């Protein structure tokens, strides 16, 4: 009993450490003064200012536009590529997978500067399109790694069974292969979207001052000093993540249950 209590206290302290800073941010986002230490009454003025700030509005637009476009393109290219890679074998597959791992394992800062060098070397002006290309590049590997296990689990005869029953290769792909690997595709797409929304380092090196995402905006605001608008932004982002993660968790736990039912 005593041990159990100690365990719970220990976990509580760890969670306090993890959540206290976030909670302080959230609480002070409603504080009616610029102070981060004294409570001056409840206000929503930072939220209103946040939504009226043209820089933040623009950054939000770019963040979502880039996340949507890059995750969509990465999901399509990655899924098709995964099917192609799956039918490779021997050393070629190992080589392709190892190169595919580079953006995941390489430090973000190296990925960021290497792409920046490429764009400048190729005389492409940094901005929206370079940032989009960079995001697609680091998103595809995650999509491939989410889809490949599903392809491996796939009964290799499934495709043949569809052909056997009269389906053309294209019909078999859309009616059989795609639905069977859909969980992997959805996971990959969600992962790509979140990584894109969250990215700072790679975006930082591959855009111009006119086109910034939220992370870059937060970085430059935090460098110049404390700003209660960031607190308001934190609260909104925290809640968004909370909701998104809930959806993903429900989805995966449903999948686990289905697996168990087999």
């Amino acid at each position: 009993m005593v041990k159990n209590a100690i365990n719970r206290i220990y976990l509580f302290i760890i969670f306090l450490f993890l959540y206290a800073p976030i909670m302080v941010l959230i609480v002070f986002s409603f504080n009616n003064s610029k102070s981060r230490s004294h409570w001056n009454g409840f206000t929503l003025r930072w939220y209103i200012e946040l939504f009226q700030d043209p820089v933040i509005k623009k950054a939000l637009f770019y963040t979502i536009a880039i996340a949507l476009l890059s995750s969509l393109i990465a999901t399509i290219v990655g899924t098709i590529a995964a099917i192609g890679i799956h039918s490779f074998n021997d050393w070629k597959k190992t080589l392709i997978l190892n190169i595919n791992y580079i953006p995941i394992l390489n430090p973000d800062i190296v990925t960021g500067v290497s792409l920046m060098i490429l764009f400048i070397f190729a005389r492409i002006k940094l901005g929206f399109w370079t940032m989009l290309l960079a995001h697609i590049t680091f998103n595809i590997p995650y999509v491939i790694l989410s889809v490949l296990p599903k392809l491996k689990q796939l009964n290799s005869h499934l495709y043949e069974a569809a052909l056997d029953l009269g389906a053309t290769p294209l019909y078999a792909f859309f009616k059989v292969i795609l639905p069977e690997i859909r969980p992997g595709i959805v996971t990959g797409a969600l992962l790509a979207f979140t990584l894109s929304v969250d990215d700072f380092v790679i975006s930082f090196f591959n855009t111009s001052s006119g086109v910034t995402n939220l992370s870059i905006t937060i970085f430059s605001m935090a460098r110049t000093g404390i700003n209660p608008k960031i607190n308001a932004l934190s609260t909104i982002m925290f809640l968004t993540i909370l909701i998104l993660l809930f959806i993903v968790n429900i989805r995966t736990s449903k999948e686990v249950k289905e697996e168990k039912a087999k």
Partner: protein
Amino acid sequence: MAEHIIELVDISKTFDSTEVLKTINLYIRKNEFLTLLGPSGCGKTTTLRIIGGFEQPTTGKVLFEGKDITSLPPYKRRVNTVFQRYALFSHLSVEENIAFGLKIKKLDKATIKEKVRNALKLVNLEGYENRSVDSLSGGQQQRIAIARALVNEPDVLLLDEPLGALDLKLRQDMQVELKRMQKQLGITFIYVTHDQEEALTMSDTIVVMKDGLIQQIGTPEDIYNEPKNAFVADFIGESNIIPGIMKKDCLVEFCNTIFDCVDKGFGVNEPVDVVIRPEDVEIYPDDSGKLQGIVESVTFKGVHYEMIIRTDSFAFTAHNTLMFPQNSKVSISVAPDNIHIMKKAVN
């Protein structure tokens, strides 16, 4: 000629410089239950996949009712397959699985429903239409896979070790049912297995394969009673295979003893393999048999006892309903028509 539904002419297949099939010639008659039997890696599944259209032969032709279909893709062949691990579509219900091929043929909804119902009836799973595939047992999934193939009314049904994943009791039940379905529908079944008992139970014709070559084609009785070589004999059932020398027609020497036999046409003093089934070894408690030996071990097998009897030069496996105690002295004989003489396997 017309009774041949499928003909394989000089088929060979090479994968990455490995020769999996070497010159296969096979004629399959209408409405027969033909089994491709052999150990793993003998080429039986490749042969089936060539008939199904999933592999292209390196050389040779596949004829269907006399017409060359070698390069026809699987979805244009009037052949359906039951896959090894069923290959059911887990994102579709039982009904949608079975209706998959019918929908492609664009049949109307009422017809599809009716056909699905009949197919489920055929495999004894009436009322399972709306179940999810994952909720079914292995045996039930197997039946759905069969129903999904049969509902398309193929001329030929290909079955690739369909019972491999089932337990013994279920397997035996399914063997009987498959045979019933084949008779009821009157279509050709081509069945691949490595289980000789399964092959003997169900087939009209057995094709024994090894290393990409056909060893023997015949009825189950032929194959069992008159195996063409020592490999077939050993694969079809447990056998004593003893090196011997053919003295002249109907006279063979093995274990330093001369035996009468019924085989002719070998050269004088030609080395041969002598095959004797365990149940054909006659045991005598005294020395009245032709070879003297000692019972080395006794194992109870249910219907009979299995005994190892060691003579001077060979340890015979014998099956008998009578038990001869371990270490007892016995003698054995074999009737002339139970001695099978085979040409030495060329290795």
